[in-house]
């Protein structure tokens, strides 16, 4: 049996999305079904059943299934994880609860913080001590460990996180504890901080290790059961899991390191955008995804996905940094903004318009859904402005109530500000774009990027409606909208190579670094990564990229510098020094000549080959691409003007159309402003070029 098919499957908050790509025929099939929160694998199997009706036995021909899931993040949010214990160095069991001691809001006297995932009675101190240079100054106490093990046994603990001080530099005690606890508590999952996050800073390391331990049993049983059910349905190929880093790994590795799956879903959209950008021969671009409650922005420079490692989960105030549980894992550098189609518009204490971050969600939803929502939302504004067709929302499956949208905008925004309904609606639309633009500018400034030089790749339900206004504000000249934007994440999974990241703290001043020691540490990391890649079915030697986090001695900010290929030598190191100074100067406008600098972390990324693209050339059918025309708001004309409406999949390749226009497909609507041009290219991508002048009023 050939295995020429690949499937992407993304479990989102509301829908589970599927894409099946047949490499031989180039066909792409798309399916969507409702997510089943109690056991998400039910929803997955329902989708498989629907796809199977269409193409019986397709799973037997599927070589790889790529799976993305929000299970980890939901387990933490809904507190559905395992009964977990934490072992720390004695005297430090409350580090997890004490946190940073800083308030996330200066003035709010009522602020709340999330409860730690491990209750205090299950946080136990171990009598031992390792110094910052890695030297053991108190040995483990066998008798005490026996007592601790008995205690955990009587509590029926399912998972144990072990985080000892300075274990990032000497993991010996953590490893010994694992052996002892595995023996004393058979069947219990164990997570070591020296494996999950071997980096300095005990609070972040403990918090990350605890999230990992908390989700491990759940993730292991979910993935094992999903694999069995897939196999029962004929899957002979592999089940692989998406990582927050944009990499792909085996279910064994994923089960051991569930904390690395925290952004497993959203990352697919960025991978797709990265791929689309490359297809268009562009170097740098924004990925912009806007859904019901949030928008996500990512700046993609060059060939690799931008990485970060700082993340917060279960915030008590969704958009307040510091109100959640910190985790530090390799993660695509996504900016989340509290603006979506469901964001509520109203008047704040300063008597100014405010859009979001409160959201109407799906129930009651925007006023135009007719489900009892009385607050005007961004979607209501988009409808009143004529950008959305009340009779063609989700391909006409859901009728929208224009009168209800108008009434809500009139009452809550128009009257208080003394604006007519249309201007109030445009105010909401524009304010949503402005908050996204402001956040994007800040994010771009932090990375030293000029937004006007980048193209924008848009996706998500509301993304295509807002991308034009956002691009105009940012000074972006070109917008690209890929096919099947409604299932963008699942499609993105199919273009990701198998890959895995590892990091290890090794703090040493650069001039004194023992290069052979650095080399052997790198080799150790590579050997570990090789094992992980083998589990994921990679028989060929992976490609390794080595890099170092370097900083000035004493400064808090580290710069990641990629090392030249080959073994670490003195020549490579002096090149590294120059590169570090140059990168620093580029970021901050100056460097500190004469200041010593040091290595902080060693990092490697191992990756396999890039799979064939599921975005294959397709021609528009050409026939009846002109649908109708409708009145929609034009900010330049400061009034409603006629917009031609096109069926996005029927537009012939290469035909250039002029704005103002609207392109419709089942899951989204693309708005093109006056003066812009748009065409569908040979890849089936919709391209929009903004005019040089006069984009904003």
């Amino acid at each position, binding site marked *: 049996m050939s295995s020429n098919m690949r499937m992407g499957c993304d479990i989102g908050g509301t829908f589970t999305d599927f894409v099946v790509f047949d490499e031989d025929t180039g066909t792409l099939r798309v399916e969507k079904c409702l997510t089943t929160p109690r056991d998400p694998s039910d929803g997955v199997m329902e989708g498989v059943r629907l796809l199977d009706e269409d193409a019986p036995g397709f799973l037997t021909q599927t070589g790889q299934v790529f799976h993305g899931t929000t299970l980890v993040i939901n387990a933490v949010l809904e507190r559905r994880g395992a009964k977990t214990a934490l072992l720390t160095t004695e005297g430090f069991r409350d580090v997890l609860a004490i946190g940073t001691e800083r308030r996330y809001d200066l003035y709010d006297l009522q602020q709340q913080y999330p409860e730690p995932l491990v209750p205090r009675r299950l946080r136990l101190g171990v009598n031992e001590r390792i110094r910052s240079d890695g030297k053991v100054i108190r040995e483990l106490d066998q008798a005490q460990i026996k007592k601790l093990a008995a205690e955990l046994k009587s509590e029926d603990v399912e998972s144990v996180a072990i985080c000892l001080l300075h274990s990032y530099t000497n993991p010996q005690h953590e490893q010994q504890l694992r052996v002892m606890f595995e023996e004393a508590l058979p069947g219990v999952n164990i997570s070591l901080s020296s494996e999950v996050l071997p980096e300095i800073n005990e609070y972040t390391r403990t918090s990350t290790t605890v999230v990992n331990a908390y989700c491990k049993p759940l993730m292991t049983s979910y993935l094992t059961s999903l694999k069995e059910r897939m196999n029962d349905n004929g899957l002979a190929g592999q089940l692989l899991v998406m990582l927050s880093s944009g990499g792909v790994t085996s279910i064994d590795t994923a089960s051991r390191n569930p904390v690395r799956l925290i952004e497993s879903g959203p990352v697919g959209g960025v991978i797709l955008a990265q791929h689309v950008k490359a297809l268009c021969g562009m170097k740098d671009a924004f990925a912009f995804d806007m859904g019901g409650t949030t928008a996500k922005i990512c700046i993609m420079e060059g060939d690799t996905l931008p990485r970060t490692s700082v993340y917060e989960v279960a915030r008590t105030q969704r958009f307040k940094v510091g109100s959640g549980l910190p985790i530090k894992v390799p993660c695509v550098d996504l900016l989340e903004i509290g603006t979506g189609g469901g964001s509520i518009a109203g008047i704040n204490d300063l008597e100014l318009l405010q859009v979001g971050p409160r959201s109407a969600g799906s129930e009651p939803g925007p006023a135009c859904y007719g489900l009892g929502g009385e607050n005007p939302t961004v979607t209501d504004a988009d409808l009143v402005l004529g950008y959305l067709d009340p009779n063609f929302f989700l391909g006409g499956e859901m009728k929208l109530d224009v009168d209800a949208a108008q009434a809500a905008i009139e009452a809550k925004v128009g009257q208080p500000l003394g604006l007519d309904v249309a201007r109030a609606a445009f105010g909401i639309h524009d304010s949503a774009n402005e908050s996204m633009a402001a956040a994007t500018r800040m994010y771009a400034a932090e990375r030293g990027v000029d937004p006007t030089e980048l193209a924008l790749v848009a996706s998500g339900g509301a993304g295509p409606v807002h991308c034009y206004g956002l691009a105009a504000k940012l000074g972006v000249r070109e917008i690209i909208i890929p096919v099947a934007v409604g299932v963008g994440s699942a499609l993105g999974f199919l273009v990701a190579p198998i890959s895995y990241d590892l990091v290890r703290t090794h703090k040493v001043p650069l001039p004194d670094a023992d290069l052979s020691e650095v080399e052997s540490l790198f080799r150790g990391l590579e050997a570990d990564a090789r094992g992980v890649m083998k589990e994921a079915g990679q028989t060929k030697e992976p490609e390794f990229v080595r890099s170092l986090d370097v900083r000035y001695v004493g400064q*808090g900010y580290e710069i990641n510098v990629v090392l030249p290929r080959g073994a670490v030598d003195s020549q490579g190191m002096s090149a590294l020094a120059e590169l570090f100074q140059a990168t620093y100067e580029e970021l901050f406008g100056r460097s500190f000549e004469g200041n010593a600098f040091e290595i902080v972390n060693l990092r490697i990324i191992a990756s396999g080959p890039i799979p064939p693209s599921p975005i294959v050339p397709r021609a528009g059918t050409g026939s009846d691409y002109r649908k109708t025309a409708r009145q929609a708001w034009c900010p330049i004309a400061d009034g409603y003007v006629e917009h031609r409406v096109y069926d996005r999949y029927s537009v012939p390749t290469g035909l250039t159309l002029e704005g103002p226009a609207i392109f419709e497909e089942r899951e989204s609507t693309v708005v093109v402003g006056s003066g812009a041009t748009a065409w569908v290219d040979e890849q089936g991508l919709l391209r929009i070029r903004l005019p040089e002048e006069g984009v904003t009023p």
Partner: protein
Amino acid sequence: MSQTFDALTLERAWSRLKSIADEADASVMRTAFSSIIRDSHDYSCAFYDARGYLMSQPGFVTPGLLGGMTAAIRAINDYFPFQSLVEGDVIITNDPWLVCGHLPDVMVAAPVFHHGKLVAFAACVFHHQDIGGRLGVDNREIFEEGLQIPPSMLCRAGQFNEDLIGVMSANSRMPELLVNDIRSQVNTVQFTGSRIRAFLDEFGWDSLEPIADAIFERTEVALRKSIEEIPDGVYRSEYPIETGDGDRTVLVKLALTVDGGSVTADFEGSDPQIDRGINCVLNFTIAYCLFALKSVTAPFLPNNHGSTKPFTVKAPEGSIVNAKRPAAVIARNTVGHFIPSLVYEALAEVVPEKVIAESGSLPTWWLTLAGTRHDGRPFMVGPMFSGGIGARSSSDGVSCLTFPANVNNTPVELLESDSPLIVERREYLQDSGGAGRYRGGLGQEFALRVPDDDMAPDGPVVEFLTAGRFSTVAKGVSGGGEGSLASAILNGEPITWGKSFLLNAGDRISYRTAGGGGYGAPGERDRELVAEELREGLISAEAAFDLYGLKSHG
């Protein structure tokens, strides 16, 4: 009066201005060197219009630094008249009476020019690790406390004053940290300036004043409306604050007059300044008074020039809350951080639901440990840590949280990397939170040891602590119990915070911060919660049964 803007333009411009302040804040995290900046986040950035009025502050500031800086910007005019400033000028000062009340807080400020015209001021204050001087609260005069920098030109038209840098460097125990952090401050104000120019270009405006006035006016109107919800009247409180010198306390008295949409805070009757480094300058008193009033009346309104207008603060000259030169001021937080407590206590009788019980976390503990490593390298670390905040009207006080300042603690692993010291404990203190329907936040034990092995330091380690609540507990509200007292124990013997100690190899010192006061009677606390906290070890069996009246082992 002010130019009118349409509501949409105003909203758009305002959201842009707010993000400039946050961008400035983020840039510091990348360029600063010292642990007190990068780990503790003890710094504040802000920018001002051409008149020196506060436009916007980032999400993360500490009230004392922000308030002091805001006063200092206007004062620059007396030293360097605004019209004499030119592009590329950068001003520096740490004058406690002009800025933030003690010498380690150094302000760097720059006029921002756009098409040759002064349009704004960008400024930041960093709390530097060391500005020289004697490490002790028992200083008698400012002259013992380190280098004083009157308002001076750090850069004149883009030319760095290297002589001044040399003087600063020569006066610090950690000269490289000081100089690098000062340069990072210059980076920050220059970056802020470039963002302000880009903003004006984009909107096609030539000054900030019209938009500033429109925002100030709306802020002021909204704030006055919130103040009007408090019944008119005069509300009083007083508090004896410990001095770190035996049983000696200083009394601070407050009378708050609420009159329609205005509040006057008067500290008349407070004790005179004293011959110890706990004196508070007027700027610091005003800053914490305004912070507290805003947190009660309108916590979610932006903070700008408009939000200061409804408030007037008066304090008799020469008093402990308006000390005159040459008072010693290094530990002014040990008095100034109590001011919010006085404000809440005064308002508790009229708006009990809006205030919190007294906090064990004030003042913020600032510990300095300095010495020489075994290999001759100097070290100096400045960890900060806190007790528990007071319980709220509908929830428990948060344990170990800075209040009213806002800084991070220092991770143990970083502290041990930057010094030879060994931290032995950072843990909640059982029963430290005041009992109540809502419990006060818990304090913590933070214990450390000077090693006596191969890492033993060369010579003694100087210990210098600014702290409080060693003799005055955090009281509860509406029947809530009091939090535990703070203490420090050196090799088993209680010590006081007001005096510096020399620690030797093998010495062990343990610090116990105070708990917050409770809210409401303990008998009204949810029984299941009492039983749960007993199981968790947050309260003892005696507390559960005697204080809370728990009947059985739930």
